[in-house]
């Protein structure tokens, strides 16, 4: 479980995050939703420590991360896997080297064990026998899968995904969402998914935090999202015609 308290962040006098609190539970996908530019990525980067928040704390299962000592930070970092918006695969390395990379830098286990672990993870994301392909030879969906494999290869306890289905066709997007959900349940990890895609929300939204212009406006699950009573959330949810027609019924 991850807890965040009083997160504030400004960039050059422009406040991006305003007093965000929340908990993210283990074993289910936790979604952070909201339209573009509301600070979802900045919040995620504050949680994983890529950006230092101006105030606030982030607790990983009771361990305070933001102001932790370097040793503790390193220890927690070993348990973090992250899938980036554009996959962020290292383009000079092939699939196998990409997935093995966290093991190379974070562990001292022997090569054959590393290879076993890499092949296990590649198989889990449905990409057997792609070991020697380069990232540029993969489709967008396959790149995301490699990104997921790389994020979980070190037996991560925490998985962060920033817009995991951006740039994918709707069918592939759903497959990636489902993969993230399955992995979360199967390995019992704490997963945070940032998205603005209503399909993801209705598919895997067990626990949802809605953000609007740097504030958290609502929290709940996919059953309650259609009758939250929050006008900004209604605008977000019913932006699309299909959802609108559902509301009328």
């Amino acid at each position, binding site marked *: 479980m991850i807890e965040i308290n009083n997160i504030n962040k400004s960039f050059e006098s422009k406040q991006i995050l305003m007093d965000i609190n929340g908990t993210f539970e283990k074993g289910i996908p936790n979604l952070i939703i909201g339209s573009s530019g509301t600070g979802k990525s900045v919040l995620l*980067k504050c949680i*994983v*420590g*890529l950006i230092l928040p101006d105030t606030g704390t982030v607790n990983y299962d009771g361990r305070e991360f933001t102001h932790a000592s*370097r040793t503790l*930070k*390193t220890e927690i*970092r*070993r348990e*973090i896997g*992250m899938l*980036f*918006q*554009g996959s*962020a*695969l*290292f*383009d000079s390395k092939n699939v196998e080297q990409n997935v093995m*990379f*966290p093991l190379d*830098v*974070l562990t001292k286990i022997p090569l054959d064990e590393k290879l076993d672990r890499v092949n296990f993870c590649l198989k889990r994301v449905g990409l057997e026998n792609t070991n020697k392909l380069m990232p540029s030879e993969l489709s967008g969906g396959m790149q995301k899968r490699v990104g997921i494999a790389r994020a979980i290869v070190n037996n991560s306890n925490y998985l962060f995904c920033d817009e995991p289905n951006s740039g994918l066709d709707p069918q592939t997007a759903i497959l990636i969402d489902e993969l993230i959900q399955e992995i979360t349940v199967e390995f019992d990890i704490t997963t945070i998914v940032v998205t603005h895609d209503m399909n993801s929300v209705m598919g895997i939204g067990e626990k949802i935090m809605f953000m609007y212009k740097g504030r958290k406006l609502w929290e709940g699950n996919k059953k309650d999202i259609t009758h939250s009573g929050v006008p900004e959330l209604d605008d977000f949810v019913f932006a699309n015609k299909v959802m609108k027609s559902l509301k009328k019924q």
Partner: protein
Amino acid sequence: MKTIGKYFIFLGQLFVRRETFSTYFHLVMEECIQIGINSIFLVALVATFMGAVTTVQTAYNLVSPLIPNYIIATVVRDMTILELAPTIIGIIYAGKVGSSMAGGLGTMRITEQIDALEVMGINSASYLVLPKIIASLLMYPMLVILAGVLSILGGAMAGTVTGIITPADYKYGIQYIFVEYMVEFALIKSYVFAFLIASISSFKGYYTTGGALEVGKASTRAVTDSIIAILIADYLLAEMLLTS
């Protein structure tokens, strides 16, 4: 001014929280190969022609019967070692290697590959940039030596083919009043230039923000800023080391 401050902070960052020696060893080797592939052909081509052109032009300017022919070779040698090899090749190197360093790092930045390294707890600046600087310090002086040799050989070729100077005179000329300190000076310059080009180009690439357009701009800025730094350093080093 703010940029210069940021540059020095960036340099400081390279030396904290480093990875293991063997990690760097592999990265440095990869960079050396990359630099070699990127630059050796162009450097060789430019150096050979530089020597040839200098020979022909010096001969054209020295028409006095009082000056012996072998002086042409002496002039080619001095110009090559003092200025042409370290400085002109530096400009070529900034254009080829510097721009590719900035472009590579810029792409890694905008595609979040640098963030991916940071999430794993790696000091990305040190991991990505230090090997580039070390590889430059290893490779650039070698390229300068190669360029010096080829320039002098290019001069010999041009001199012989055009009949300006006989091989024997040329050989005598390049050994005539040879000051060894010139070679030392050229090597000092090449270490300084190698460091400047690699670090400035990396700095420009590492702090790219935005998209593909900005990566292109960062590459261009890397080349222009490196060249300006080389020219300033060239002048300062000449002041410091040649006048006494």
